[in-house]
């Protein structure tokens, strides 16, 4: 990292900050396939990972990349891939495997306009629901959204921490603007950063029951080669990891998958608020749009509107408790998004008619400006 400004201050791009976050979190394996606007993450890691004894590999496609990071994680490494919409679609089948087999890993999706090849160099937020529901079958997942370069660093670490703690894939949504904007960031010394590693089994191998429930709902995880020989499968399995058709075992397993995330909900649901305490109208935003929203709130206040911002840092599990507080307090909320309303629908869903939920959507490849948001705030 060359662009050092002072002690712990650096001038970085969002994608570079993801790399710093990943290395700080202890990532030692990356597999990916080039795609704009995510390629810098691959390029930098191809240079940095071998320096720390880690491994970088460019695979033949994103399906393979996702498979490789799962394999690497099963062998004990903290692993990551990075892509954009089209590649993220290709990852979905194996992402489901990571969910059912409870393999910690991090998937960064630097969103661009879609569908299909879409707008490769423009920002968008069209993959929110793909992140939530892109893989098949019922499953819980953790999805975070970065809005600044500082966020990109911190949330990449969080993403690894959640992945390790809950044995789940974590999706970090970035977008073209956050990825390529250069900003000053503060990277605290390593010893000040909380890093979580998966819990390894403490019992001898003959006592290890690899998918047995416990109070957290997260079984300890052995790495291949550590002497705990066990079976990992994408089939629904019993506590020993073997395929099962027994309804009682299926239900216990599926419920635990959901429960482990639900139990962690308070910690996982992350939001940031800005001037929300006395707000009568609020913006609920995430990603690069939250940056414009902050400015819009200040400008609206200058014009006498008691506005505030609730920034969603965690998108899924949907931070409904925090959103509900705002919905109870405010007369109206505005949900600006670079899509046709993927999160506004979630907001409406938890609203139960208490508050007016307004949308502001932009799909032309441009950013939602502070003026657009302020204008809407003045209207409501």
């Amino acid at each position, binding site marked *: 990292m060359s662009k050092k400004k002072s002690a712990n201050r650096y001038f970085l791009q969002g994608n570079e900050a993801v790399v710093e976050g990943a290395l700080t979190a202890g990532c*030692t394996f990356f597999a990916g396939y080039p795609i704009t606007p995510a390629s810098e993450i691959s390029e930098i890691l191809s240079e940095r990972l071998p320096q720390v004894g880690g491994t970088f590999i460019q695979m033949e496609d994103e399906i393979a990349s996702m*498979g490789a990071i799962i*394999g690497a994680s099963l062998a004990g490494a903290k692993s990551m891939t990075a892509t954009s919409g089209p590649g993220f679609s290709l990852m979905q089948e194996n992402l489901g495997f990571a969910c059912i087999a409870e393999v910690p890993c991090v998937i960064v999706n630097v969103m661009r306009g879609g569908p299909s090849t879409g707008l490769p160099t423009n920002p968008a937020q069209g993959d929110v629901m793909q992140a939530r529901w892109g893989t098949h079958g019922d499953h819980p997942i953790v999805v975070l959204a970065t809005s600044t370069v500082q966020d990109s660093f911190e949330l990449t670490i969080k993403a690894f921490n959640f992945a390790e703690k809950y044995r789940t894939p974590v999706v970090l949504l970035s977008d073209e603007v956050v990825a390529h904007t250069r900003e000053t960031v503060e990277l605290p010394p390593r010893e000040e950063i909380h890093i979580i590693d998966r819990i390894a089994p403490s019992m001898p191998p003959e006592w290890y029951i690899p998918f047995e429930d416990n109070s957290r709902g997260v079984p300890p995880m052995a790495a291949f080669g550590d002497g705990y020989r066990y*079976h*990992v*499968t*994408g089939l629904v399995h019993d506590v020993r990891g073997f395929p099962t058709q027994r309804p009682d075992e299926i239900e216990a397993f599926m419920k635990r998958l959901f429960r482990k995330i639900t139990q962690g909900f308070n910690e996982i649901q992350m939001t940031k608020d800005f001037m929300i305490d006395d707000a009568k109208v609020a913006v609920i935003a995430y990603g690069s749009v939250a940056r414009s929203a902050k400015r819009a709130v200040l400008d609206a206040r200058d014009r006498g509107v008691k506005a505030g911002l609730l920034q969603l840092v965690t998108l899924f599990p949907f931070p409904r408790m925090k959103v509900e507080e705002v919905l109870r307090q405010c007369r109206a909320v505005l949900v600006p998004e670079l899509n046709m309303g993927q999160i506004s629908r979630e907001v409406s869903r938890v609203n139960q008619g208490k508050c007016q939920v307004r949308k502001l959507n932009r799909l032309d490849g441009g950013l939602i400006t502070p003026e657009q948001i302020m204008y809407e705030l003045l209207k409501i």
Partner: protein
Amino acid sequence: MDHKGTKLIHKYLRHDKKFPHVWCPGCGNGIVLGALIRAIDKLGLKKDDVVMVSGIGCSGRMPVYVDFNTLHTTHGRALTFATGIKLVRPHLHVMVVMGDGDATAIGGNHFIHAARRNIDLTAIIVNNQIYGMTGGQHSPTTPYGCKATTAMYGHIEHAFSISELAVTAGASFVARGSVYHAQMLDGMLEKAILKKGFSVVEVMSNCHVQFGRRNQMGDPVTMMKRLKDHAVRIEKAKTMEPGELEGKFTIGILADVDKPVYTEEYEKIREGAKR
């Protein structure tokens, strides 16, 4: 199998797995698993150091029964998972069991690239020339003219030769055997496991239920005899006219070359980058 052999397999079977297994009586998959176990035992590999990875299909069910580190992945993608494992823990012996459809239809891209990269994995492909698990649809190795549940008028596509594909793609070791030639298979698997680099063992196998039945090939025993009659040793094939080889397949070692192995090359990159 003799008494001694039966005991050997018990040494490697998982006793806590709920048997019976999923395979039809007479299926070739069991013979392949038996050969693999004998090869591993003969080489004296530690169970803890063996990782068996598979894709999806009848053949993909192999790992669940044996006491290694085992991973049953998604259809066609086994080699990608195996790649991640091998790169993180190069000392592990990573064996990847796939079906013909698994390895060369949906997983064809991964197959040629794993070979090209020369990553030190042992790929075992059970070629029964059909999609067994899903009910007898045609696969990339279903012969021209044969019937399949999705080729009821006879197959009009041409089959891949998996082994030749592997040679062309750059695999370090390629052998083709059959479930009839079980002893020969043991030896091929031993060589493949020992080989540094990407090695492929293609095993011609019988699926009397989904392939043989629809193509009047008879019961498992008749199909085994067919494998015997249609197999030609590579050395002998070289002396034969192309016409004489019509409808037959060659068995033996197609490639055994030494070239830089991915994990070792990457280790050099690490050493250089750290300086």
